[in-house]
């Protein structure tokens, strides 16, 4: 499924379903915020993180 198709599919969900996703996104954001930035990263880890952040 293309990114555009995925966005359309998500947009077509009911408001209740979207709110449930919002809640999960929020929990994840809070969990990231709670752990704070990583101080040390291995070269391999950095490479993986960079790859993961790509759109």
């Amino acid at each position, binding site marked *: 499924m293309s990114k555009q198709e995925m*966005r*359309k599919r*998500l*947009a077509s969900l009911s*408001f*209740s379903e*979207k*709110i*449930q*996703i*919002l*809640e999960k*996104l*929020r*929990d*994840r*954001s*809070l969990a990231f915020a709670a752990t704070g930035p990583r101080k040390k990263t291995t070269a391999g880890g950095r490479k993986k993180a960079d790859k993961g952040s790509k759109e």
Partner: protein
Amino acid sequence: MAHNDGKDAPVRVTLETINQMQADGVIGKYAIGGAVGATLYLEPAATLDVDIFVTLPAAPDSLLLSLEPIYDYLKARGGTVKDEHIVIGGWPVQFLPPSNDLEREAVTESVATDVEGVTTWVMSAEHLVAIALRTGRSKDHIRILQFIEQKAVDRDELQSILERHGLSSKWLQFESKYLAGTHE
């Protein structure tokens, strides 16, 4: 109000509390705006709070609108104040009295919808776009583009709102900067 530690608390609890506050006469009509409001029309995007635009019953002895009755009501039911938000059912909520005619109209013409069986009101897509245009931060511009790209706005209705609230020239600037050559 349901009490919890803020984790895994559904927005439904937050909305039930706000509806009860409305039924108790603390607030008048309200409408969800911001990122949560936009979620009715677009794909969900991460956000940490809920923006509620709310009309307040005018105090008979004051011309100033105060959010104090809202805070008093919610604190008495377990709500906690955190910066400009009050945490209800685990979600930080920012109550915003409409500050101009556009926001007042957006509340009046909000759309009734349903979250897990709880009725609530969300601003129309066209009002969300007009308010985002007026606010004009980068994230507002991104949201407007999402509405346009996903054809989630009625362009005639949007034009009508923009004209009514003196935002036509701002829209032309936005169009020439972000939509030129996109056939949108």
